[in-house]
């Protein structure tokens, strides 16, 4: 693996070497390394680009890594990854995409991830998007995540796009079954002239279902973010959404909550706040010896942690 690919892998999956357990590493449009285990199978799709990840019922304390790295300028791809998670599992899935574009042509990765989570299974999903490169070519990423949570299942998503992506449309759609719970922590940092659109849409369809959607955004310089969070309460359920954003310089953030309750026992809450870094936070850190810029960086680092 070339040095640039290794560095991207470290950024998106925090990997210095090949991971333990099942993995599939996709480099410049092709699967470059793969490992399966007795409980986790990874199969290439035959009708389109992408893989099926099949996790056997009862698989516990195992992980799957499926990072994507693009270091070739001008590469554009659309990839379908489907996760079939059996009943009573407890697994961690680490995805992520890193683009390094030092050339003159645009690079793009559109990934569509679908999760079918079986009864009483527990899934943690971590996805990081990152771009770098000094070329004129732009870096685009459009991840779509589709989730179906079965009865009693739970899924926690930590998704982040921390810099370097010129344009993104991030779509997450979920249906949550009886007694199932979905937690999403989504973080976006944009700067320069970058644009980011995020749409989170959750249907709470089963009695006892819940969701907690937390979106944090920081828009620096002339960047623009639009975040839409939609919760449909179709059963006796609890839904909570929180959009918290910091704008700096000439950044623009628009947050749109949409709550629809169609069951009298649905309880839905939305909170949204957009503003600059609080002056008292800067002052406090300056009384501890940081200059204004260092204080700002620490506040943002914590906010997007």
């Amino acid at each position, binding site marked *: 693996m070339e040095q640039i690919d290794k560095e991207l892998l470290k950024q998106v999956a925090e990997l210095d070497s090949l991971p333990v357990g099942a993995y599939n590493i996709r480099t410049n449009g092709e699967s470059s390394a793969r490992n399966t285990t007795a409980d986790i199978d990874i199969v290439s799709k035959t009708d389109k680009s992408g893989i099926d990840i099949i996790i056997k019922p009862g698989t516990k304390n195992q992980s799957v890594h499926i990072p994507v790295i693009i270091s070739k300028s001008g590469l554009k791809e659309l990839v379908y990854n489907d996760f079939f998670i059996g009943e009573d599992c407890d697994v961690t899935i680490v995805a992520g995409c890193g683009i390094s574009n030092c050339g003159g042509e645009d690079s793009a990765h559109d990934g569509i991830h679908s999760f079918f989570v079986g009864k009483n299974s527990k899934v943690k999903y971590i996805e990081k998007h990152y771009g770098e490169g000094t070329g004129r070519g732009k870096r685009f990423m459009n991840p779509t995540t589709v989730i179906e949570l079965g009865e009693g299942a739970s899924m926690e998503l930590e998704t982040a796009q921390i810099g370097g992506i010129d344009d993104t449309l991030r779509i997450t759609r979920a249906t949550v079954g009886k007694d199932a719970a979905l937690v999403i922590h989504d973080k976006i940092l944009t700067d320069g002239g970058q644009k980011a659109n995020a749409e989170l849409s959750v249907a709470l369809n089963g009695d006892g279902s819940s969701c907690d959607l937390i979106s*944090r955004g920081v828009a620096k310089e002339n960047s623009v973010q639009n975040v839409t969070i939609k919760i449909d309460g179709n059963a006796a359920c609890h839904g909570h959404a929180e959009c918290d954003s910091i704008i700096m310089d000439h950044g623009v953030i628009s947050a749109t909550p949409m709550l629809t309750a169609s069951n009298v026992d649905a309880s839905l809450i939305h909170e949204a706040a957009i503003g600059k870094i609080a002056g*008292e936070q800067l002052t406090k850190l300056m009384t501890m010896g940081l200059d204004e810029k260092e204080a700002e960086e*620490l506040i943002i680092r914590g*906010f997007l942690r």
Partner: protein
Amino acid sequence: MLELQNISFTAPDGKDILKNISLTVDDRFVAITGPNGSGKSTLLKVIMGIVTPTAGKIILDGEDITDLPINERANRGMGLAFQQPVHFKGLKVRDLLELAGAKDTPKKTRYLHACDILGQVGLCAQDYIDRELDGTLSGGEMKRIEIAMTAARGTKLTLFDEPEAGIDLWSFQSLIHVFEKLHEQTGGNVLIISHQERILNIADKIIYLKDGEVDQYDDRDKVISRLSFGARQKACNYCGDMREEG
């Protein structure tokens, strides 16, 4: 040693908050007390550089620091525990306590020091070190962490703005112990705004501010006896106003 020379501050609405204050702080513990609105907090903010005085000079160990920004004062050995601690989403107690530790000490030493200081303010380090400094902590917990963060810096001039507010009486002795340890460690000066008799009682000197002016600045016993009019009156624990006892 801190020296204030003819410090005045006029608010944007024209109100004189501090009027020609000149004093020197060179004792172990100096308490500032006085009624609400007498300018106590503003005085600490002027010393720390958060508020720019309209006139006058601030001298720290012989150096004129009047025009220095907050962080440069901090790096010259000053610290301030806020009256109202600040929340930070995402930042943990550990982050700020480690930041407060000396930069040239190893991370592990800073961590152990942080745990020790949390213990001093009556918080179990294990339970609090990874808590976020957000709305999930109570006012009293935030206040203790604020005191711990400030003490962890071990500065030669440390300012506390009403450290007792929100702290239950049980932990008063611990709070006083924090001041004593801080002095032991730094040999510096601690300047504390307080209305609490138990804190005034450990002060070497007391400054009594009234209407933006220094009404009294003397040894503790002298100021207390002058203010208490033969022990018939005492400073109210809540507002600092002089009240008849009994």
